[in-house]
């Protein structure tokens, strides 16, 4: 039982981390980026390429991946968001779907369809607590999640650059009048989202393996977490992610493993229909 709960909890943390980059972009510029899952996947694939093909130690591969993904984030923004940012929401959504097809098939062309494994920072070792076997990688996931989510609240409230980002998110016109370079801030938002994608990618890849479909699989789960928690809410995202992770594990081991994803999608639709604001969704009211 403890083992199940730990597994569900750690999966939920990954959903929250994967969804965070998506929510960050949504809150900052109102763009819905359906390609964020592919960015998470590329974070993992770059890590694999730098550590396995180029033989870098994992920490160095992580740093180089951050740089590579920062560039990808800026490119993404320049190509698929900035030119159409004043168009209807549906245009932005469809352009991001186009980017997701582009990235997924680029991964297929570069790395092929077979699953690849990225090593964890803590290897495959496990610790035993009573009858439960818990991997060190799961503990790493908890630590990173705690660090990222406390870090972000300090970053946005205490640092100058974080406040500038928040100002841009609230009112681009006013931010521009205050001398904030809005385009630069939007670029920065996409870079931060790409960083979060790298973190999520490095944590999920040792568990799920990397293949060209993994980005879609992870972002779909992240969407469900985001909807449960309330679109745009960061505490809601964490709660929604953990709720989903736990539900999945408990449903799979006690009810049905074949239909566990069907149940997750039912939760998505039910929440959207019954309470579209989710658990923590006050922020949407401001947005609309």
């Amino acid at each position, binding site marked *: 039982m403890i083992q199940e709960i730990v597994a569900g909890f750690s999966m939920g943390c990954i959903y929250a981390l994967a969804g965070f980059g998506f929510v960050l972009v949504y809150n900052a510029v109102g763009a819905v980026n359906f390609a964020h899952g592919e960015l998470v996947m590329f974070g993992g694939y770059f890590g694999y390429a730098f550590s396995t093909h180029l033989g870098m130690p994992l920490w160095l591969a992580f740093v180089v991946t951050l740089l590579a993904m920062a560039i990808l984030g800026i490119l993404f923004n320049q190509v698929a968001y900035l030119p159409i940012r004043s168009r209807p*929401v549906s245009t932005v959504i469809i352009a991001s779907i186009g980017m997701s097809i582009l990235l997924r098939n680029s991964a297929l062309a570069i790395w092929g369809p077979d699953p690849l494994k990225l090593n964890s920072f803590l290897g495959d070792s496990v610790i035993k607590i009573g009858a439960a076997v818990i991997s060190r990688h799961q503990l790493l996931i908890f630590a990173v999640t705690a660090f990222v989510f406390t870090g972000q609240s300090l970053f946005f409230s205490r640092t100058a650059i974080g406040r500038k980002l928040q100002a841009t998110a609230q009112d681009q016109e006013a931010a521009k009048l205050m001398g904030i370079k809005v385009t630069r801030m939007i670029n920065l938002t996409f870079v931060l989202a790409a960083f979060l994608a790298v973190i999520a990618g490095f944590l999920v890849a040792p568990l799920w393996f990397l293949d060209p479909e993994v980005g879609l699989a992870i972002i779909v789960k992240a969407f469900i977490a985001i909807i449960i928690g309330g679109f745009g809410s960061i505490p809601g995202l964490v709660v929604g992610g953990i709720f989903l992770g736990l539900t999945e594990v408990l449903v799979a081991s006690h009810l049905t493993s074949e239909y566990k994803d069907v149940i997750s*999608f039912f939760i998505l639709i039910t929440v959207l229909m019954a309470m579209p604001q989710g658990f923590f969704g006050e922020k949407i009211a401001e947005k609309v």
Partner: protein
Amino acid sequence: MGFKKKNVIIAVIIGGVVMILPIFFRDSRYYMNILNFSGIFIVLTYSLNLIHGYLGLISIGHAGFFAIGAYVTAGLTMGTTLNFFPSLLIASTAAALAGILLGFPATRIGGHYFVLITLGFGEIVRLIILNWKEVTNGTNGLNNIPPPSFGSWVFASRFSYYYLVLFFILVTMLLTLSLRRSKYGRSMLSLKTGELAATAMGVNPLTTKLINFGMAGLFAGLAGGLYASYIGSISPEAFSVDLSVEVLVMTLVGGSGTLLGPIIGTTFLMVLKEWLRFLREYYMILYGAGIVFVMIFMPYGIMGLAKRISSQLKS
């Protein structure tokens, strides 16, 4: 509203070309295949054209309706004594009911929330097909689906199938056209432009949206039934999100909400795919880039581009 003389002449010419087109390709299985698949996808694209073109909503779950149409048609023609046409009718009705079901959330939520609902719907249908092995045969799918027949006439050849598909394209087009000219069609377009204003003017958003989704489900179910009995075997992997996205792209490339857009967009992309087949997996990379390109430079598709060029030529 009457028909303009010029439009009638154009329609007659296009109709004539479409009627005799397969005679040239009759001996080529390959070209007949492209024509027939394009035809089936045109019916499917007309379905999304209703939802996106008339209500402004995006669906990435259309594979769900398509799958319902395909599996119900296949199941009825294989498992019961029912003929093809009644089976197709029941299958399309089932898909229409699923459409109406999906129409209910559409009255309350839009934008990206609705996109996620449709994603959930499509995935639920696919996962059920995949796991309900007793009925759907799971990953192996259904094989040896009989070709459509009408009395003693069997649509066994690709050439005869072309005219069957053409018939259903005409039905879909006529239904779309009569919807466009009816009170409900105008109500839909007014909801798309401004829901609050339209409601204030007496448009009932619930009935209007349910009619739209019911018809969209019907078209997609028809397409699914035609698909299943044409290719003869179906399995869950054909009905993934990729298919839904492909249909969305066909709708947008042609020009959403126009009468000819679905035909142009679907045929263009089907032919392009065959033409660029030598690129293999790189084609899909180009395809993704193409979607972004279309969104940036021609958001109203080929029909929008044509309209812009013709109005510039006039002035």
